[in-house]
């Protein structure tokens, strides 16, 4: 079977060939604790076997003897899919690796290869196309939800030249509706010159980056940036501390091969700026909080201190034992939080289509196993939460919020889990 393998650049060449197989990455991965076969080095090895066959002389001549082989059937691709979807792209393996190998990047390339062979979770594949083709803009349920949101908000919409554009996506409204409204409340309280967009800017852009569809990534980024440029804000903020942030803040300029006229900030960065400049006053809340570093905002986004500055201002804040670059991933990222039957049901309800019934029995089994792995992977994070002694876990990624909340319920940890802006909104004077 012909597979389209990724082209290599110096960075991916390094990831491909410089792994010595020491396994130092293994203890950093949430899914290693589900099954040792999901260690980052073992997941990346699947792609390495294919790359050796394509790119190395020894691989072409000696094949399996030197660990070079191509999958020969769709069944094997589905086996590989299971490895590819035991990775959250948290980046912990990257910083734990003595050689600086980002195994998450290798898994992303594996997903791309599988996607091109039409092996990908249906829900995520469909959403990536739905977003990339802009179909979400004309979907009746989404249009109606958006119009209802704009009516309820009493905020400027589509204002050109505002200092701040609040980038709101479909999933912001579906998963973090309170946080969206509280952000608007905070922006007004701070006297900010801001605007909302006239339309949602993506479903959760770019979903293509998670499922391995770079074409969909480019399309949605092109669309969003063109729209933003028509409004020409100085700053674009997002409340989503998941993959949306590093993709918009760092990868988007490389996707479009141009720098933008606007800065991209996470809401926590703007809140820290407001506190520094005394634009916000917060009353003390008597609550023991801890900050869960979303992997995409923290390790992959560089935002560690700003949320802590905010929380230290008005709560009884303490860190978890593993924090910042050493933060333990909740296990929900990289699409893992979508591979649940309940998520399929929720998305079916949103879009008015029965997604779950349309899945093959093979895919349903894959989802069930992924779900079991997801619930096991959360456990390690919950141990860290317990050790902090916090009563509230504060974070900024919708999947982290949902995952840690599920983990708290499953593992009997008595904590509230909430988005940073919701807590800030409670403390506004």
């Amino acid at each position, binding site marked *: 079977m012909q597979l389209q393998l990724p082209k*290599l*650049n*110096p*960075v991916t*060449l*390094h990831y491909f*060939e*410089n*792994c*010595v*197989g*020491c*396994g*130092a990455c*293994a*203890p*950093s991965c949430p899914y290693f604790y589900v099954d*040792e076969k999901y260690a980052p*080095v*073992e997941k990346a*090895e*699947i792609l390495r*076997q294919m790359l050796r066959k394509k790119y190395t002389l020894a691989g072409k001549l000696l094949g399996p*003897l*030197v*660990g070079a082989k191509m999958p020969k059937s769709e069944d094997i691709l589905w086996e590989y899919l299971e490895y590819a979807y035991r990775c959250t792209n948290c*980046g912990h393996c*990257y*910083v*734990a*690796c*003595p*050689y*600086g*190998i*980002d195994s998450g990047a290798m898994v992303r390339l594996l997903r791309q290869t599988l996607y091109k062979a039409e092996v990908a979770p249906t829900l995520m594949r469909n959403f990536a196309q739905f977003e990339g083709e802009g179909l979400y803009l004309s979907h009746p349920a989404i249009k109606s939800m958006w119009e209802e949101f704009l009516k309820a908000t009493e905020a400027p919409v589509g204002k050109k030249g505002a200092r701040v554009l609040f980038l709101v996506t479909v999933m912001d409204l579906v998963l973090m509706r309170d946080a969206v409204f509280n952000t608007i409340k905070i922006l007004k309280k701070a006297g900010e010159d801001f605007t909302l967009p006239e339309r949602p800017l993506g479903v959760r852009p770019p979903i293509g980056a998670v499922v391995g569809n770079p074409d969909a990534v480019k399309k949605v980024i092109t669309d969003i940036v063109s729209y933003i440029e028509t409004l020409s804000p100085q700053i674009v903020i997002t409340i989503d501390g998941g993959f949306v942030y*590093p993709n918009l803040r*760092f990868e988007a*300029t*490389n996707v*479009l*091969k*141009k*720098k*933008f006229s606007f800065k991209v900030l996470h809401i926590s960065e703007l809140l820290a700026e407001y506190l520094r400049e005394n634009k916000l006053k917060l009353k003390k809340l008597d609550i023991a909080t801890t900050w869960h570093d979303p992997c995409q905002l*923290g*390790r*992959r*986004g*560089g*935002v*560690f201190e700003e949320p802590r500055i905010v929380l230290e201002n008005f709560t009884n804040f303490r860190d978890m034992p593993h924090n910042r*670059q*050493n933060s333990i991933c909740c296990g929900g990222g990289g699409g893992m939080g979508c591979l649940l039957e309940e998520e399929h049901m929720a998305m079916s309800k949103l879009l008015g289509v029965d997604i779950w019934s349309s899945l093959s029995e093979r895919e349903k089994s894959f989802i069930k196993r992924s779900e079991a792995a997801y619930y096991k992977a959360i456990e390690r994070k919950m141990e860290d939460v317990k050790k902090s002694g916090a009563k509230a876990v504060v974070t900024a990624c919708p999947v982290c919020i949902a995952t840690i909340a599920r983990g708290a319920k499953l593992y009997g940890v008595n904590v509230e889990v909430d988005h940073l802006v919701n807590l800030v909104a409670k403390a506004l004077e």
Partner: protein
Amino acid sequence: MDLYQLAVFVLFPLALYIFAFGAAYRIFRYVFLYEKGVYVPRGRGAGHAIKELIMTFLRPIIFAFRTNPVEAFAGLVALHFVGLILLVFLLAQHIAYLEYLIPFYGVLRPLAIPISSTTGAIQVTTPTGYVQRVESIWGPLTIILNGDVLTVFALIGIVYKMVEKLVDKLWHKSKRVRIGDLLIWPLLFVIVVTGWLAAHHYPPGVDSYMFVLGLHIASAAAFVAVWPFTKYFHFLWGYWYGKLHEWYDLALKRGA
């Protein structure tokens, strides 16, 4: 021509030429494949950059000691730091040979590590009536910093790795253990053991010495020749490129 002469005058120089070709090929691909990206770095300042440069290298070592102390001791400390790096680059006999190849290498002579902390087994053939402690810049550290002790550490590391790779392959069915792993560790083992035997003139006799030393240099030549074509090239390239790239990507670009 005996094995010693073959190894020193033919095999090792040939290995160096193969090494040079392989190393150039490996590194040239990084230059050839380079494409400039368009990024807006966060820019957290020089203090952050310097602190993160150190932490980028230190973090995995700290993590390894916390999460897998056996591997950290055997694989990192015993095998790398104490065993191979000190043994290969600072053992007196190696400094002598490397200085012959690269005269500038002689600057490391004052740091030379003796094969033994005392005059050792040579006493058997040239008895002086007393045991003299070796004079070295390392002073009392010579009790550890000598070829005999470093060899023990290196062998602990190599045997650990040999067993680990076999167990991973046969019991854990690990994908990442390939035939190269099963060949290169025994080669390293042969190099270290023959080196130790040669340094101690064992088996006794000049012909045996020449043979064992020849075997040591020939096996080292085999290693040098395959070096750029194996994962051991990490020592010259992969480790440094990888960590510096990570520093650039996470600390400088993203401010993490």
